């Protein structure tokens, strides 16, 4: 008796009891659908975090003044009271570290901006002309200021979309004058719209001026709190991180026992941490869904056991007319595998549909994972074999004489 025939026998037996087969499959259907939907939600979250990090730039490094722990006193990085990072340091990084391609300081000055009879309070950020490239943030209209503007500390400014909307509603801000701390600045460009960051802050509520201008004309000090550094590639970020650290320690004349008075952070680390978090979440969700799959499997075993008892006579007949124990065992095993695989297939469809529908109803991003689908198929087959084996063995071990006598 070949496998194909056994499969056909198993199928016929299932078709004879459609309602029961459908209800038994329900457990597996729900389990598989849950696994796929949950993993999709997890992967979706992971992908959106990843996308946000990539939008910042994965070969990005932060260099900030101060360290998390100086002499036992913990201070936040980029503390305005810490004057350990200078423009010279940044120039040295740019000049001497080969794995670094671009550097921009990031000096912040909060101020009231006045344009005609309108005004707006925002942070004016002093950066270098390489800022748009480092942050992967292009200019929408006009242009960014130039190298020459930085050298001459020109009073030029590039504004974010929120400013453009609020100070120049319906007008073109390019070429207009805007007053910052009573100094007139000429608007040379408007940044592209960036939207909200993951914390919900408006990233377009900004203005950029040459850092030299901000330091000399607005802040009146030449220290830098934070700088963005771009490594030549994502792989080079770790090299850049250690080379910058070495360079700055040397420049700050720190002895081996002294801790860093600056902090270099790597965006790849941040990305990996975020990735790790969402991976943990995905695994957690999948585990919870996996429990329902397990419960579904136990349901199959339950029904198969009932089925073996109920069909004792059928088993007796099959054995009497010449079915070997192995044929009976295979039949019941295949019935249970067919149940779980069919349930798995329906579950996959349901799970994928759920994954596609969830973003529309709940607003959560989802990403259907091929791994979850393949995993579910394998798992449901395993469930069928595992939970079908005991009932099948029970069926195969029946004595035909007893089985035929069974009422």
């Amino acid at each position: 008796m070949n496998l194909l025939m056994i499969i056909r026998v198993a199928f016929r037996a299932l078709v004879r009891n459609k309602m029961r087969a459908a209800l038994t499959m329900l457990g597996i259907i729900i389990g598989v659908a849950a696994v796929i939907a949950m993993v999709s939600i997890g992967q979706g979250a992971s992908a959106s975090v990843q996308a946000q990090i990539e939008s910042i730039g994965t070969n990005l490094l932060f260099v900030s003044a101060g360290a998390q722990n100086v002499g036992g006193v913990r201070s936040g990085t980029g503390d305005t009271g810490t004057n350990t990072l200078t423009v010279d340091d940044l120039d040295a990084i740019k000049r001497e570290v080969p794995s670094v391609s671009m550097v921009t300081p990031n000096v912040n000055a909060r101020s009231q901006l006045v344009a005609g009879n309108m005004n707006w309070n925002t942070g004016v950020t002093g950066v270098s002309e390489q800022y748009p490239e480092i942050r992967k943030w292009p200019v929408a209209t006009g242009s960014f200021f130039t190298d020459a503007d930085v050298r001459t500390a020109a009073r030029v400014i590039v504004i974010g979309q929120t400013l453009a909307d609020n100070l120049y509603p319906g007008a073109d801000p390019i070429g207009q004058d805007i007053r910052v701390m009573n100094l007139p600045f000429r608007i040379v460009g408007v940044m592209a719209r960036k939207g909200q960051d993951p914390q919900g802050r408006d990233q377009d509520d900004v203005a950029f001026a040459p850092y030299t201008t901000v330091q000399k004309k607005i802040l009146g000090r030449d220290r830098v709190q934070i700088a963005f550094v771009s490594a030549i590639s994502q792989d080079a970020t770790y090299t850049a991180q250690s080379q910058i650290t070495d360079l700055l320690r040397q420049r700050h004349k720190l002895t081996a026992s002294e801790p860093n008075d600056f902090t270099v952070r790597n965006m790849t680390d941040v990305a990996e941490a975020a990735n790790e978090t969402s991976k943990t979440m995905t695994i957690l969700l999948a585990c919870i869904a996996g429990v329902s799959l397990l419960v579904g499997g136990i349901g199959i075993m339950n029904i198969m056991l009932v089925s073996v008892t109920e069909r004792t006579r059928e088993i007796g007949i099959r054995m009497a007319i010449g079915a070997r124990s192995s044929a009976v065992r295979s039949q019941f095993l295949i019935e249970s595998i067919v149940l779980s695989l069919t349930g798995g297939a329906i579950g996959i469809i349901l799970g994928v549909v759920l994954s596609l529908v969830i973003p529309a109803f709940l607003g959560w991003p989802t990403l259907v994972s091929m791994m979850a689908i393949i995993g579910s198929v394998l798992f449901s087959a395993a469930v069928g074999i595992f939970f079908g084996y005991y009932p099948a063995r029970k069926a195969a071990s029946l004595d035909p004489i007893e089985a035929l006598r069974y009422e």
Partner: protein
Amino acid sequence: MSTTFAVEPQEFQPAVGFRTQVPEARPVIELDHIHKTYTMGDVEVHALRGVSLTIREGEFVAIMGASGSGKSTTMNIIGCLDRPTRGTYILDGEDVSQMSKDERADIRCQKIGFVFQGFNLLSRTSALENVELPMLYLGVDAATRHQRAIEALAAVGLSGREQNHPNQLSGGQQQRVAVARSLVNNPALILADEPTGNLDSRTSVEVMEIFQRLNRERGITLVLVTHEPDIAEYADRVVVFKDGKIKSDRPVEHRRNAAEELKNLPIIEDDDDEDEE
């Protein structure tokens, strides 16, 4: 394994009662000092105490006895459903007394056809599929299975009922499906366990007519277990069991002819539309 079941009734019909057993015919069943002991708790039950019995090809033997006489145990051993505790059983030239479970399953599949009191058909399964079942376990290909099942159903007068499920058939028709199933693998032996126990008297005669016809026309060896003496008279030899031993073994003196009796029986409106076959 291509056997045709084309039955041409009334072509050659000697008076069944005068049929003489050919002594040289090959033995199909040889039971030699069969003992069967069951252990029930601490008590040993001796179901069979040295049964020796030879049944030759083409014989139609009825086994009788009260309940507890050992006839069911003998039946189970002959049918290879059970093994003797002691003694040897040679079925169709093969010693099956010490065979494993799987070997006996194969023997049952190839050499024995079963007909039971309770019909024992698979429910929610067509007559055709029920008849195909033994061939499935023998590994016969689908086309041959189909062909032979149709022929077997025709041989028991159930042409046109192939797609009916057991619950759409009368008791007599169900038993005839069971007979068709028993003969479809062309067995050396058909074993019928109280085949008329659930049937009314006319249907019983009809089933016995089929058995007599198969026995006469195809020379199929038949062993019939019954407790009804008048049913036993359709056989040509009656073996009576008592207390785990054979009490008597004699030929039937006035053998009944089911076909003749059917002609004289009033037709009761039941499932007789196939008698005119």
